[in-house]
């Protein structure tokens, strides 16, 4: 019972953390670009403003997709805090990703459709990596349960360094950071407008944004699990991953989708993961 309550508590706190991290991200990005940047709480102001706007959508499926996306992100985070099954978490996470695509395809708009197709290619790149990382967890702990990780007495980073890198790779894709922001760019790239999110507006865009914060918390949480033995270690891992993401986001140019499909980018992360799995398997 206690786990459920603390998990729900964690879930309620997560949007705050996610929002703060996003504000932090925007500040650092601004500094990297020699700007001052918005206040730390700007993401929350944005959301509040969006929530107050009049809803305008092309069809009802968009509304449905926005809610389902948020629900799936929240549920997978809940599962994570409850120490549930990694594979189940992965599958619930997929629901959200699928509904982002469904929401984008269901509008006859070229911008959102192109965004959706690219989003699918991105999923193609990060989904196998996530499964392989989770299999790595299972090989170290003997089960897919998240709780089982905390019974180990050695940090997982020692056994699965390459899988950590692969997860970082998947993280960049999932958070739509450059060079993988081909589906919904945060930057002022004109040709896509806003990709998968083009047709969302007002309160529904706010829902999608909150879902994105939750995903951020979840993925950083997964990163933290690689050094579960010490709180400092967790903080170091999370900080390092986040900072690296922001840095990479700012120093790389965007890929074309063709580059995405060709072997280099698709197989690099998976290759890292595979090598690590083989190593675990042999050891």
């Amino acid at each position, binding site marked *: 019972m206690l786990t459920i309550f603390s998990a729900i508590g964690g879930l309620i706190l997560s949007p705050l953390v996610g929002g703060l991290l996003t504000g932090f991200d925007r500040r650092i990005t601004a500094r990297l670009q020699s700007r001052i940047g918005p206040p730390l709480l700007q993401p929350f102001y944005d959301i509040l403003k969006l929530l107050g706007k009049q*809803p*305008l959508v*092309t*069809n*009802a*499926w968009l*509304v*449905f997709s*926005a*809610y*389902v996306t948020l*629900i*799936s992100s*929240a*549920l997978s985070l809940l*599962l994570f805090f409850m120490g*549930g*099954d990694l*594979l*189940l978490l992965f*599958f*619930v996470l*997929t*629901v959200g*990703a*699928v509904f982002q*695509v*469904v*929401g*984008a*395809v*269901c*509008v*006859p708009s*070229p911008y*959102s*459709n192109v965004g*959706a*197709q690219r989003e*699918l*290619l991105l*999923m*193609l790149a990060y*989904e*196998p990596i996530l*499964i392989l990382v989770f*299999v790595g967890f299972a090989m170290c702990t003997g*089960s*897919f*349960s998240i709780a089982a990780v905390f019974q180990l007495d050695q940090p997982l980073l020692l056994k699965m360094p390459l899988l950590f890198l692969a997860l970082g790779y998947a993280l960049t894709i999932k958070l739509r950071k450059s060079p993988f922001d081909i589906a919904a760019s945060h930057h002022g790239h004109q040709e896509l*407008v806003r990709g998968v999110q*083009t*047709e969302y*507006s007002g309160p529904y865009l706010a829902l999608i944004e909150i879902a994105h914060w939750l995903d951020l918390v979840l993925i950083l949480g997964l990163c933290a699990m690689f050094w579960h033995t010490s709180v400092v270690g967790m903080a170091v891992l999370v900080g390092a991953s986040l900072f690296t993401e922001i840095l990479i986001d700012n120093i790389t140019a965007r890929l074309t*989708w063709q580059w995405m499909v*060709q072997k280099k980018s698709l197989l690099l992360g*998976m290759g890292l993961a*595979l090598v690590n*799995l083989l190593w675990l*398997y042999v050891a």
Partner: protein
Amino acid sequence: MKMSTLVFCCVALPFIMGLVLYFTQSSSTRKLIVPAAITIMAVAAVTLGANGAFRLEVGSILGLSADTVFSVLDLLLLVYILGIGWKLGSRLIMGMTLLQLVGLLYLKFVLPGHEVPITAFVADGLSLIMVIIITVVGGLITIYGLGYMDLHEEHLHLRVSRQPRFFAIIFCFLGAMNGLVLCNNLSWMFLFWEITTLCSFMLIGHDQTDESKANAQRALWMNVLGGLAFVSAMLFIQKSLGTLSTELVLQKMTSLDVKNTAILLPFAFFCLAAFTKSAQVPFESWLCGAMVAPTPVSALLHSATMVKAGTYLLLRMAPAFAGTTMSTIVALFGAFTFVATCILAVSQSNAKKVLAYSTIANLGLIIACVGINTAASMMAATTIIIYHSVSKGLLFMCVGAIEQRIGSRDIEDMRGLYGKMPRTAIITVIGIFTMMLPPFGMLIGKWMAIEAIARATQAMTPIVFFVALGSAFTVLFWARWAGVLVSSSKMHEHPTYGHPKPSVMFALRSLCGLAVVFSFISPLVLKTFVEPSVSGVYARFNMQAEGFIPGATLTGAEGYVWIYFLFLLLGLGVWYAWREARRVPESSHAQPYFSGLTEVKDGVVGFRGPMNVFEPVRVSNFYLSQYFGESKITRAIDIISTAFLVVLVGGLL
């Protein structure tokens, strides 16, 4: 009720009904006979299932020894197929059928006879699950066929209805499938195996167009090759183990400590036979070609019957080769098929082709599970068989209904289908989600599969890689299809009418209901059907049920509560989302964004193009055929998969 009556209703009654239907010209009489017969069969099948495992001796049929009857039928059937080969002028088919005939005669007359009488029917959990799937899913598809075939023949402008022939063959098909999964004697099983080959040949060629004839012929030669592998397997088994009783064969095999290559060889042939039946690469082309047939045929071939016969044979024989390298090769082969056909499906915009490749992929996953050969993986395989049959049957029927309405089976033409035939569109979307998302059964099967694979002792890394990659491709082609179906530029669609034929809507709704309800009670299904069927096999052959675990199996007490808690939340969330979506007022409607150039003309959304000309919007999916097209990669896939088969059989020679 007596066991023999129930078995009679499942196996012999369909053949009798087939004969009756063949001579029933009146359409209204047919519409009475078909549902009645299906109901009787379904009730019998479910009763059989509820009664649990049984053994049944059959001494004589009409005064003749049952064995003699079956032998004569075996030979007659082969002679008939030989005749077809002659008529088609195909030396390949004739040659392989002749070889089968010679093999069978050698088996009956030269090799020493059976020293122990063989129990005719030995049904365990697996057989009963199969019987229920075949009769219920197959039955619903047949009922769907009643409405579908009327429209189909209207479109073809036939002078004389060919429906008597059509339904006669379908009933024989169902009967043969039931016989195949229930009987214990391998040579009887062979008869049913060949009947399914023959029936699928006749059904694929039903429309008598050039294309359907060519595809039917291809299906025939590939399956005759499988039949040849089956006969060879029987010959080797009779020679090395001295019996053709499946039960005794498995008992003898599982009691062996060391399995040498000679004794494994027949099982490699069984695998080959199963691969052809289940259309694994490189034999996938016959199943893809089968879509030229009327929709009920493809629905039947892809879901409950035919392809499932192959996986059934593998599941049945799996204990015999547990723990061998051969088993690992089978697992690798299955995983390879899974990923290869998932990639092929990505490049297809033809809905039936997408479904076909996805079927082959899922069969590959089942075969990978069989190859891993632990109790957990067997459970995963059985679960996927059950849920795949229901969902895939449903999806095929949906595409058929859609095609009759919009005249195309191309996914791009289904844009905005929700506005035209909302009920069918929603059922199709639900069907798609049952194939790929939690909490539906297929996903639970896949979950169990990954759990089982992660615990595999041999070649785990490549298998898990193939499966991880393959499932990502799966998401790609399903998600975009679902999006296309609900695409619309109106806030709320106000549907007008659905499919005109009540039997079609009835079948769609029932199967959709089955898919959803069975997913919801999946812990119960797993606990009462799947787990006993696997543990039954392991207990019967004194095998250690290692790795009989996963939390994913949902059968553990705590697993249950967990999953329901989560799924309940998910369900509530989706319900809430649906309610909110329904409540958005029409006044919130906005046109899609076109950089300020949006224009609507005669209800068509578009934008103001160059020279102030109205341009209607056109969008389309990426099919990436420059990377994943059939012409690009089929050859490589064929070469790799043939290499697998060569290693599988050649490694033992």
